[in-house]
């Protein structure tokens, strides 16, 4: 108890002095702030991308692709196969017809608003149930395309990122000309990066006959996916993979977010090592500035333990202040920062927002805490071991 009271007393004293030594602490604070800023900024890319991909997926919707295809782009199904799939068991029906959409997409070039560079954007042909099949999609402006016409509805993210996609615009892709008639929202999910049109029109314009790439269906319940995939596995006329929409998108998000993490964590660790040296430096300086105070307190009978604790608390506190500054900056600058990137799985652009999540901020503060503890430990031991008689002499 007495130990603790001593430690608290010396720590409080030390913190009262801190403002007068602020200059020397700046290096430590800035170093840690930079670490947390970079950490949160880099990883907010991964979380933002994952979030965008995961938001798009639900588990009561299934995507059926040709067996072995990792993505829609390298899948292919005939119209007959698609009909067999749509009428398999486990699928919700609306009256007579299964809740299903045959889909096909191609990649078109559209100029970025910001730079004017051409980027690959998915143009997806869908059927009437496409909107119902995606829980978060709704037409927010204008109207849905009409069947059989060269009309487009465009995702809101695509509209803000790429040029020429405002409602009423005519836009040419290759030989064909399209009219934008509506905008749809999808809670910022990956669908918002797409352009949609009528499947039959797209098939005709791009000479795809009646073939499609995927069949998207609404399951009776999330568990019905087993019934569906078993039935299709037993049917010799089709050879397909059945994935829940959630798993499908998670699989697509994997490689890129993995890559960001593989770069982000080691980068953070490297910077953190730098910040530890910054903290060490500041704390050794601080201990030497406090030398007279420490020696006086020790002469009065305060123990080495209280000096140790006060130094570690100072270092940790400075680090946490740095961490909070870095995290706040990351949040202010990067949260919601919109970018588009090539999604390797679909060879097209995904528009997503950086997400500086509470979880990321907590991890950043934890890193700051560790930097503070490690950077404070050796100076603290040094301070606690200060030979009192000699220290008093030097002042």
């Amino acid at each position: 108890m007495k130990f603790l009271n001593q430690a608290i007393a010396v720590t409080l004293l030390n913190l009262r002095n801190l403002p007068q030594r602020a200059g020397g602490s700046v290096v430590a604070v800035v170093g840690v702030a930079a670490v947390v800023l970079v950490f949160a900024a880099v990883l907010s890319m991964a979380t933002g991308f994952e979030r965008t991909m995961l938001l798009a997926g639900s588990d009561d919707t299934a995507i059926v692709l040709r067996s072995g295809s990792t993505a829609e782009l390298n899948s292919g199904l005939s119209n007959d196969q698609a009909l067999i799939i749509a009428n398999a068991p486990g699928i919700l029906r609306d009256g007579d017809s299964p809740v299903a959409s045959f889909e096909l997409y191609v990649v078109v070039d559209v100029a970025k608003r910001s730079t004017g560079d051409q980027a690959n954007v998915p143009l997806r042909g869908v059927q009437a149930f496409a909107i119902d099949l995606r829980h978060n999609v709704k037409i927010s402006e204008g109207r849905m395309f009409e069947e059989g016409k060269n009309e487009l509805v465009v995702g809101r993210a695509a509209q803000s990122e790429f040029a020429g996609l405002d409602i009423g615009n005519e836009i040419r892709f290759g030989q064909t000309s399209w009219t934008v008639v509506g905008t749809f929202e999808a809670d910022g999910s990956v669908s918002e990066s797409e352009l949609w049109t009528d499947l039959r029109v797209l098939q005709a314009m791009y000479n795809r006959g009646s073939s499609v790439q995927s069949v998207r269906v609404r399951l009776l319940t999330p568990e019905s996916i087993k019934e569906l995939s078993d039935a299709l596995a037993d049917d010799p006329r089709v050879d397909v993979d059945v994935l829940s929409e959630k798993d499908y998108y998670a699989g697509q998000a994997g490689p890129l977010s993995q890559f960001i993490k593989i770069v982000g964590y080691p980068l953070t660790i490297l910077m953190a090592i730098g910040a530890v040296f910054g903290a060490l430096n500041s704390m050794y300086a601080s201990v030497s500035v406090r030398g007279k105070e420490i020696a006086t307190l020790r002469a009065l009978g305060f123990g080495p333990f209280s000096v140790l604790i006060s130094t570690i608390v100072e270092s940790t506190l400075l680090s946490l202040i740095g961490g909070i500054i870095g995290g706040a900056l990351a949040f202010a600058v990067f949260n919601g920062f919109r970018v588009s990137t090539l999604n390797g799985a679909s060879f097209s652009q995904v528009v997503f927002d950086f997400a500086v999540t509470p979880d990321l901020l907590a991890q950043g503060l934890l890193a700051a805490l560790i930097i503070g503890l490690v950077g404070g430990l050796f100076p603290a031991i040094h301070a606690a071991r200060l030979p009192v008689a000699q220290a008093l002499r030097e002042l």
Partner: protein
Amino acid sequence: MAETLATLQGVSRVYQKGKERVDVLHELDLEINTGDFLALMGPSGSGKTTLLNLLGGLDKPTAGTVNVGGAILSSMSNSQLSNWRATHVGFIFQFYNLLPVLTARKNVELPLLLTNMSAKERSRRAEIALDIVGLADRASHRPRELSGGQEQRVAIARAIVSDPQLLLCDEPTGDLDRATADEILKLLQTLNAEHGKTIIMVTHDAQAADYARRTLHMDKGKLEARTTA
């Protein structure tokens, strides 16, 4: 009639300065009685501060025993010495060593944080100590709002607040003008005569030494007794 408070027997203190050996104190013997007021004089580098540090448990001898009030300081661990200092000795430094962020009262209270006293009791004792040194009306001033003499009074109050038997002063008037120095020295005399404190005071100033009951001269780590007029 006088009992012995501190005994040094065969005390040597050797510093190692790189490869060089610095023999500061050499087989020194000394007895100090309870109630004594001893002035310690001698040229710079003769080992006065070193001796004071040994008596105050801030440093340990290379050889010999240091006994203060029955405690064998020379064989105590650093943390034992820390605890011992808290209750048995008060230090008074040339440059006061007050903590600038604290008021006079809080500075004086510092040593009491090492006890189990309540905040109220600490504050009461600090007031008493400040009253003894004649600074009751400056209790809430910070060190930079005080004159040098006043700062040294606060430091003296801090040294006596936990009621130690022994006061160790290293050039307590070294930074003060004559008149202020005399006031401080009178205060030390009062503490010695009326409060029964045993005082050992290092000084370069013969006039300051006159306030003591006796003076010891140190030269090259050896003591030679001389009577003062």
